[in-house]
């Protein structure tokens, strides 16, 4: 496991995080550090609460217990106005892109700039074109979201996420449902933007191969706990059977192939006994 360096280096610090939905425990005492300037991946099987973790970091959900500090601010305790101030410094890329469907690509990217600044129209135009240029869609600015492919929509959403020059971007499943070319583009963009703009990136994903190529640091979650943490190389060489199964995509292991329940032989014998009784 990686030992984390001093607290100035840490942008997001999560300690003893507990979160449940109804009777279902999603996080059961998680500790996690996201270092400045790095690409940190949060991985784990579907349903482990990876997206929930992003919503907790962004203050859209409140934990039952524990601390979430972003840039020294305790997110669950922030007043709404302070939380909104913080969110202006955080970009988020939703799995669906979450583009506003009734306005064009240009207006989508301009949306946060128009909402939060009083810049003149010409300057907004230049800024939007710069952001769209960064994701390679400057010439698609007049298209409507319904005219974009899935990969393009995600790139527009990425341009929108960096519109206000945030300190951190949260990516929710950025690789899901992408063709190999779009996938390659997005993988490259995440790393490139992170390094060129001096961002901190958090990627929530279960696409092991793609994530491992760009992440500096990976946390593996399962059953509400952190079950593995380290660089991609450290996790590839792990001793943990569970992490090995996840990273290598093995069908059987600590996470069983069969849904838990009665034994196969018992089930078959029960059928024979029933037919005798009939």
């Amino acid at each position, binding site marked *: 496991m990686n030992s984390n360096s001093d607290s100035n280096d840490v942008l997001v610090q999560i300690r003893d995080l507990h979160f449940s939905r109804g009777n279902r425990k999603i996080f059961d005492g998680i500790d996690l550090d996201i270092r400045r300037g790095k690409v940190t991946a949060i991985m784990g099987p579907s349903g482990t609460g990876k997206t929930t973790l992003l919503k907790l970091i962004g203050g*859209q959900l409140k934990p039952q217990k524990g601390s979430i500090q972003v840039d020294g601010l305790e997110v669950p305790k922030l007043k709404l106005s302070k939380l909104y101030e913080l969110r202006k410094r955080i970009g988020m890329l939703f799995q669906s892109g979450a583009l*506003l469907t009734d306005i064009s690509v240009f207006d989508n990217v301009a949306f*946060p700039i128009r909402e939060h600044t009083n810049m003149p129209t010409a300057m907004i135009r230049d800024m939007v074109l710069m952001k769209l240029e960064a994701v390679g869609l400057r010439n698609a600015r007049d298209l409507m979201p319904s005219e974009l492919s899935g990969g393009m929509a995600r790139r527009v959403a990425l341009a929108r996420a960096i519109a206000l020059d945030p300190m951190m971007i949260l990516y929710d499943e950025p690789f899901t449902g992408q063709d190999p070319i779009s996938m390659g583009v997005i993988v490259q963009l995440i790393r490139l933007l992170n390094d060129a703009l001096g961002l901190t990136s958090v990627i929530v994903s279960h696409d092991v191969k793609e994530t491992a190529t760009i992440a500096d640091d990976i946390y593996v979650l399962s059953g509400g706990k952190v079950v593995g943490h380290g660089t991609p190389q450290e996790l590839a060489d792990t001793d943990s059977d569970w992490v090995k199964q996840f990273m290598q995509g093995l069908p059987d292991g600590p996470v069983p192939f069969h849904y838990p329940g009665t034994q196969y032989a018992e089930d078959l014998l029960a059928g024979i006994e029933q037919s005798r009784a009939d």
Partner: protein
Amino acid sequence: MVSTLRKLGRWGIGGFERLGRGHIFLFHTLMGVPSVLARFGLLVQQMLSVGVLSLLIIAVSGLFVGMVLGLQGYNTLVDFGAEQSLGVVVALSLVRELGPVVASLLFAGRAGSALTAEIGLMKSTEQLSGMEMMAVDPIKRVIAPRFLAGFISLPILATIFTAVGVIGGYFVGVGLLGVDDGAFWSQMQAKVDFSEDIMNGVIKSIVFGFVVTWIAVFEGYDCVPTSEGVSRATTRTVVHSALAILSLDFVLTALMFGNI
């Protein structure tokens, strides 16, 4: 027995919980109204899609309702030789009751359901969540302009419905059935009181406008963010709005004209 009671209890608690959520939501929406007034463009845009686009159905329905009133009113009044009072019958029916009520029912079906579906879809495609993460309050940016637009539009639409309805009644009564032109208008002018009849009708449409738009935006904002959830919410908007309009109409009529 116990399980039925438990279900009943759960249903009751769920209902009250929703009612509470609806009121908190309304409070936040009303708090967002000043910011809409500061950005007038947002309101104008919504008044176009909520109000102006409902104009055709309101005007056409108003015309037919007025024509039917003219026909039915004439058939009844002519037996008593009182067909000259047709203008009063048509105008009072429309101004006091049919204008606000039918226009509101049509508005709930046309604009209310569209508002719910639009907001519900924005929720299910994470657009509202996306706005929150961009530090833009969706209640101020999306809900409050739509609420205000509906609230302002419905009384205007109800007035148009009534006016067109009176013209419809005139066409049938005077144009087709031969009621005297002067009597139609002069009796109407003499018998329809501005504060008693017209203002009470307007107050009704203001109340319905508030309630219908509140139901529509709340159902959209509170829906389960799936396609099934959005379709259920849209249906609920129409059903709840219709029930609210008709029950409130009774209460308001009793207070205004019932001498209770």
